[in-house]
Structures are given as C-alpha cells and as structure tokens.
C-alpha cells in the first residue's frame, strides 16, 4: 500500500475499515464504496491491502455484473463460505460504473442483497458514487473518496520508479509527463514506460513531443470542425471547448485554407474572413480590449467555415504553419550573426536584427567583389578575421 502514491488519508481509512470489519458488528456497514477519478489508485489499493494483510481477494470482471445470476454466481458463494486456507476474504466489485441500464439492474439489486447477508467484507469501486443508479446501493455502503494526486506527488512517484529502474531522468521531463497525466497515475506511469523503455537517460527532448502532440491533436480537432463541420454553430462551440491558443489557431487556419478550399470565390471569401480576424487581433493588441476576442474567434472559425460549401477534395492532411517556425540557423551561426549584427549596429544606427537582414547581404557582396572595400569596411566596422571569413564564406542569414 505504501507504494501507492497520494491519498494517504483515504488509504489509512481503507485499511482501518478492512481490519476492523466484523460480520457481527450491527451498526457498521458491511460494504465500502470507493469512488474517484480513474487512475487514482482505487483498485490497486485494495489489491495491495489484501496482499499486505494476507487476505484472499475475490475480484470481479465487468461481465460479472451482467445479470443477477452472474453476480450471484460470482459473489454469492464467496460471500457465504469460508476460504480454503483459513485466510480472511475480501470481495471486490470493481468499476461498477460499467453496469448499464435495465439488463444489469438485476445485477445491482443482487449486489445489494449480497451485501446484506455477506460474511466477508465487500468493496466496490466506481468513478462516481453519486450516480443515480447507486442510490439504493449507497445506503448500504460506507463511502470513501480517492482524490487525484497532485502533479508533484506524481512526479515524485515517477522519480522513484526511475530510480528503481536505473533510469536517469531530467526533472523537467518527469514534470511534463506528470503534467500531462492530469492526476491519472496509471497513464503517467504508462507514458513513462513507453518513453523510457530501454533507455538509460530520459531528457526533456524525449518527452517534449508529448506537449505538442496534445496541442496538435486539439488543434486538428478544431481545424476539422472549421473546415468540415455541418454548421457554423458547431464550429463556434468547437473552439470554446478546445484548449487551443487562438493566435496559434489563426496561423493553422490561414496556412491550411488553400489546401482545402479550392474554389476561387470561396477561397477569396475565406481569406477575407481571416484578414478580418487579423484586423481584430491587432485591435485587441493595441487597445488591450479583450472583449473584442469574440470577433477575432468568430471570423477565424465560423466565418471561414461559412465561406465554403465543404465539398471535401478527399482526405487532405493538415499542414503545419511553417511561417511561424524560425529559419533554422545553427547556434554557432546565430551567435556569429548576432555579433556581426552588433558591429554594424554600432556604426549604422540600425538594430542588429535588421542589420543582418538588410545590410549584411550587401556587405557580403561588396566583400566578395572588392578587396579594398573589404579591408576598409571591416576596419571601419571593427570586424575580426573570423567574422570576415564567415561573411564571405556565405553563412546565410
């Protein structure tokens, strides 16, 4: 039990309840209903506990709830008869959310009956104990909530796993996995396993795609709703639901319009919408009036969606907005360019960024053509030999 993270209080209560369970205690409830979000350790706590206490665990499957007969078959005897080796027994009805509608109602009723006459402790788990179906059932149960562990708790847990598995992991990598898991320990551990498998070292880079994968997927869904939704209301709703950065979305939509909208008039309309969205983006920026956001969003989503007839030209993948990716210059290049830019800046009353883009290309040609100019200007700019070589060598900006 100690290996399960978080919910210390709940785990303690669980243990206490099981240990003090007695078939003869009249006032106490015979069943414990554990509830909480998935991956918070409900099932595994029970399993671990029975292990710690050396108890026999009778665990159900989802199919065991189908009908009254099934339940009876599974648990009926178990709740009545003693165990083979004299061990104490615990019956676990796991994930009873799975019980559906009318067919299984027999099952729920039977569970309730079993609880009434059981001679062994019974534990149930579900995501939501306050579901309407469980109203009667609840009356016979003690309730226990398992909460989502915090990101920090998950992170600690992952660290421990890494230590045990002999994996050296960057803190930032584990943090990202923990963050993405949103309280679901199981998923965090699965992610860790998938990513760290066979590795000795886990860096942030290894996991960074997790961050973008999520966002990419969220964006893809919104894009689909913009380009292919049945009506503009759906489109509007889509962006409200999605956790997507509006500016990023604008870039994606803008980039992808011509690949999906082929009819020239529709293309023109859609581009007009994006242009309007851009105007609002700028207005928000300068006036800091965030109520204008709704127009920005509307034009970029519903506006674009409404512009065309959605005759899909087959399946077309969404393209990444390359416009926003920086030109890939290596670190060395960048450092050199910045240094040269600063030299030009000193003399030419221009920012180093502009110097590189607007002045350096000409300097390069001058240097290549004319020795005298090269000498004179390098001196004037105070460029060292390395810089001059770099410029002539054509390290492109």
């Amino acid at each position: 039990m100690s290996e399960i993270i978080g919910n210390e209080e709940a785990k303690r209560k669980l243990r206490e309840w099981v240990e003090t369970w007695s078939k003869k205690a009249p006032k106490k409830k015979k069943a414990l209903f554990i509830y909480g979000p998935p991956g918070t350790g409900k099932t595994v706590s029970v399993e671990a506990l029975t292990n710690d206490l050396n108890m026999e665990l009778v665990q159900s499957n989802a199919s065991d709830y189908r009908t009254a007969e099934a339940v009876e078959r599974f648990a009926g005897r178990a709740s009545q008869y003693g165990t083979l080796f004299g061990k104490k027994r615990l019956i676990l009805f796991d994930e009873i959310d799975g019980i559906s509608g009318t067919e299984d109602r027999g099952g729920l009723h039977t569970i309730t009956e079993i609880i009434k006459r059981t001679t062994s402790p019974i534990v149930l788990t579900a995501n939501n104990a306050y579901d309407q179906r469980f109203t009667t059932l609840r009356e016979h149960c003690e309730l226990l909530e398992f909460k989502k562990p915090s990101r920090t708790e998950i992170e600690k847990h992952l660290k421990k796993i890494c230590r045990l598995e002999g994996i050296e992991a960057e803190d930032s990598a584990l943090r990202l996995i923990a963050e993405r898991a949103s309280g679901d320990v199981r998923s965090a551990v699965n992610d860790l396993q998938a990513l760290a498998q066979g590795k000795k070292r886990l860096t942030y880079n290894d996991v960074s795609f997790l961050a973008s994968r999520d966002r990419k997927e969220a964006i893809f869904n919104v894009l689909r709703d913009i380009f292919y939704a049945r009506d503009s209301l759906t489109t509007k709703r889509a962006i409200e639901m999605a956790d997507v950065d509006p500016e990023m979305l604008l870039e994606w939509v803008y980039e992808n319009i011509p690949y999906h909208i082929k009819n020239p008039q529709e293309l023109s309309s859609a581009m007009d919408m994006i242009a309007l969205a851009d105007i609002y983006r700028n207005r928000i920026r300068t006036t800091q009036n965030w109520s204008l956001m709704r127009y920005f969003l509307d034009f970029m989503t519903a506006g674009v969606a409404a512009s065309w007839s959605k005759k899909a030209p087959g399946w077309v993948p969404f393209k990444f907005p390359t416009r926003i990716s920086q030109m890939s210059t290596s670190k060395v290049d960048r450092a050199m360019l910045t240094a040269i830019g600063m030299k030009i800046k000193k003399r030419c009353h221009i920012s180093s960024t502009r110097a590189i883009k607007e002045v350096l290309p000409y300097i390069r040609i001058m240097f290549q053509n004319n020795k005298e100019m090269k000498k004179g200007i390098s001196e004037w700019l105070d460029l060292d030999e390395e810089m001059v070589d770099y410029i002539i060598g054509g390290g492109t900006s």
Partner: protein
Amino acid sequence: MFRLGYEMWTEKYRPRSLDDIVNQGEIVSRLKSFVKAKNVPHCIFAGPPGTGKTTAALCLAHDLYGEGYREYVMELNASDERGINVVRETVKTFARTRSIGEVSFKILILDEADNMTSDAQQALRRTMERYTETARFILIANYSGKIIEPIQSRCAPFRFTYLDREDVTKRIRYICEMEGIQILDEGVEAVLEIGGGDLRRTINILQTAASVGKPIDAETVYSVVGRANPYDVRDMMLTALNGDFVEARKKLREMILKYGLAGSDIIGQIHSEIYRLNVPDRWKVKLADIVGEIDYRLIQGSNEEIQLSALLAKLVEAGYDIKRGA
C-alpha cells in the same frame, strides 16, 4: 581622391544637420522650430523604412546640442532590447541624470517602437511620464497603428513619406560624383527600381554595384543584387492570377521573410503593377480599391503576410472570373 568604401556610404552621406535634409520639408521646418525654442516634445516618427526618420532624429539632436550631441542622446532598438525590464532599467538610468547646459533634457531615440509588446509599451508610457522633465522620447516606427493609444496621445506625430524620385536620383548622382564612380542612366534607373523608396537600401545597392569596379549599368546592378528585383512582385501577381494561390503565397512569404521586404514596399509595387495587368478595367478598379483598403490596414498595424494574401486570393478570383468569361 579616388577612395572606395572605407565606410558604408549610408553613414558617410547621412545628413548631419536639419539644413542638410532635402526632403520631408514640413517635418524639417517643424523640427527646426523645436531647435529654436530649445524644447522638444515626445515624438513619433512613423513611415516606411529608409525615409529619413533616424536621420531626422539625429540631426535634431545635433542641431540642439551641437557637436557633442552624442552625450545627450541614447539610441535603443526594440528588437535588440526586448522586454519590459530592459526598457525600464536602461531608460531609467539614462533619464535620471540631468543634462548640463542650456537644454535641460536628454533625448532617447527608440527605434522599432512598433515591435514592442504591448506590455513593454505600457511600461514605456509610465517611464515617459515619470521622466519627462529630463528625457524626451523620439519613437521611430513603420506603422504608428501598432503603438498603443496612450503613447500616441502623448506624442507629436510625424508622418514620413517615400522620397521624391528626383531627390533620390540627385542623391545617387551626388554620391557617385563624390566617390568618383561612373554610372549610366540605365544604372541609375535600375538602382532606383530596386531601391524602391528606401534610401538606405538604395545607397547600399549603389555601393554594392560600385564594388564591381566598372561603370555601373543596369546589368551590373541586377547581377549583384541577384533575385531581389521588381519583377518578383509582378511574377507573384501573375501566379495568383493563373490560379495558383499556394505558389503565389510562397513567393510573398519569401519576399517578406527572406528578402526583408516591407509590406509597404510590396503594396506600392502591386499598386503600380495592377494597371499593367491584362485584366478588364472593371477588375482593375476593384483591385485598386482593395489595395487601398489593405494598405490602410497595414498602416493600422495588421499582419503583412495575411493581409497581402487576402489580396492574392482576390487575384485568383479575378483570374477565375476572367477565364469563365464573366
């Protein structure tokens, strides 16, 4: 003496005093009146690149403080010094110390002010207010629309426009004379074309062409400058007219990102090209109208590529219409 390029000509031939500035007449006379009054308000110098904004600011400072003006002037660029804290700290230190002499304040030239984030601009506004006794700000921008309103309302606006063709031509010839360079008329034309209205770029092109070492003709100019020639804009427009939006947009993107052309440059060239296009008059008018609208939007601060792409889409639509015989 025949000495080529010991300096960049953009600096060598930069006017030193307001009297030396040939263009921007109204602006120059206003600035001269500031000098006379020994008082300068906060200012915004806005306009396309290479139209003399930085020069005007430096000349103003020179005329105001005399030869030692550099002590009283600080130049900052938004793109090099990003972020709120840099602005605050640098400006604070500079503005805090009083200037000795007749003029009680110092001048801070903040270039690319329209590149500053709104947060940084807010911080700037407060700094401007606090230190207005000891420091006057001259903000330089391409698009004044990108500067937040609270700052705009505190500054005297100055609109710089593209220089007259004749004035630029005179300048080109003057520099060539001083440098002992031979240039043919067609060379001058070519330099003018590629330079657009950007004087800095024009002079850089001139110096680059001169580096070849022979009399400057059109071919020399085009060869040194490579693919940065005006026919790209026409080419882009034709590509759009033919229906290939994606390709046209790619060219547009290249112009902006790779060649550093400003939106205002491109719009200007598009505007002149429209009338040479092989489209019915009805469409010419429509397109000209749209160009005007988009130009205005750019001035207001909207995104260059996106707005110009919308224009390209209209060209695609025009081409389609025409093919259908509409």
